């Protein structure tokens, strides 16, 4: 009883800011989406289809920020060998792949009425599809690996190497001929669209941070529970849950 009790004392407490921040992030996203969609005048070439910009571009940015978090956490893990860095990397990868998948789907839907096709293997689209596969592989590897330390080491290696693709995705439209246009800059975008995009960029960032923090907290809870149960089994404790 005493040994497991000390473990229970180590059960993670929910950060106080977590749920309030989640509510704030959600409300901020709703307000930003509404503001951007209602404010924006139709573009002179693509008309109202321009509105897809407010979900596609922020999603694409999050698809690069999340891998960057995986990268930093993976480096920290290999350096310090603390499980928490491994868990942050896993949380960021899981949330990140949702945004990468969203980016691909939104892009495809946007491409149909503007470019005239759902999909084409241009360098930007191909490298983004590869980005999705890298994190799908990362998560499959985590589900596959048995030993906790081994899993953390392998994942960290994939998390570090996989990140190399992010600058390639970003630069693909500049390095190679693509159908995808180069990044818009404040100069190529009328003022009416800029505010909406900036608001939604922050909204998506808040959502990203909240989801990663929530996923990380769940991982800590589940890990603490497993640790307590294992210890009880080893100690032959009579209490069974």
């Amino acid at each position, binding site marked *: 009883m005493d040994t497991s009790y000390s473990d229970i004392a180590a059960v993670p407490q929910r950060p106080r800011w977590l749920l309030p921040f989640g509510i704030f992030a959600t409300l901020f996203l709703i307000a930003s989406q509404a503001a951007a969609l209602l404010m924006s005048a139709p573009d002179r070439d693509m008309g109202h289809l321009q509105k897809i910009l407010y979900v596609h571009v922020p999603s694409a940015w999050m698809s690069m920020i999340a891998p960057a978090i995986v990268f930093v956490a993976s480096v920290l893990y290999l350096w310090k060998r603390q499980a928490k860095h491994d868990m942050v990397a896993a949380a960021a990868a899981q949330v990140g792949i949702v945004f990468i998948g969203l980016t691909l789907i939104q892009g495809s839907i946007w491409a149909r009425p503007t470019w*005239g096709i759902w999909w084409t293997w241009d360098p930007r689209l191909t490298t983004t599809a590869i980005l999705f596969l890298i994190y799908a592989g990362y998560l499959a590897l985590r589900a596959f690996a048995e030993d906790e330390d081994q899993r953390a080491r392998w994942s960290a290696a994939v998390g570090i190497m996989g990140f190399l693709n992010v600058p390639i995705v970003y630069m693909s439209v500049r390095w*190679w001929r693509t159908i995808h246009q180069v990044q818009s800059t404040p100069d190529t975008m009328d003022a009416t669209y800029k505010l909406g995009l900036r608001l939604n960029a922050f909204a998506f960032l808040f959502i990203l941070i909240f989801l990663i923090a929530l996923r990380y907290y769940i991982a800590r809870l589940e890990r603490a529970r497993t640790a307590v149960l294992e210890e009880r089994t080893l100690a032959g404790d009579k209490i069974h849950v």
Partner: protein
Amino acid sequence: MKGGRKKIGAALALIIVLSSFGYLVYGGIGENIVYFVTPGELLAKGNDAYDRPTRLGGQVVPGTMEWDADALDLRFTLQDEDGQIRVHSQKAPPAMFREGMGVIVEGKLTRTGVFESSSVMVKHSNEYRPPEDGHPKPEDMYKSLIRES
């Protein structure tokens, strides 16, 4: 072991991911690093230019577009600095298709010198402007299509 089935699923997922990854990196990228050729580049290939699957990108020469909506017959000329190629397609042009803008077509250059295209794709520029700003400038889209290439 309750983890057994999950493990097989993970292993399968891993194999699928790795093989598609390998396919994309070695097969896909190798072919698509030069995503399209310009009319001048295609014509410069001489005999090799004909009858093989090609992606051709260039500017729609203003005044060359002929669109017969009843017969679904679209013809226009694509150009770059070094050449012009007549393109034929049996599909409606995308809604954003305009003369003077950058377009990429997929198909084959036939011996008659006409490029038979199976799909027409329009390249949008990175500009977003409300219409009050003035008239569309399709040339900007052309510039963004083959700039620095």
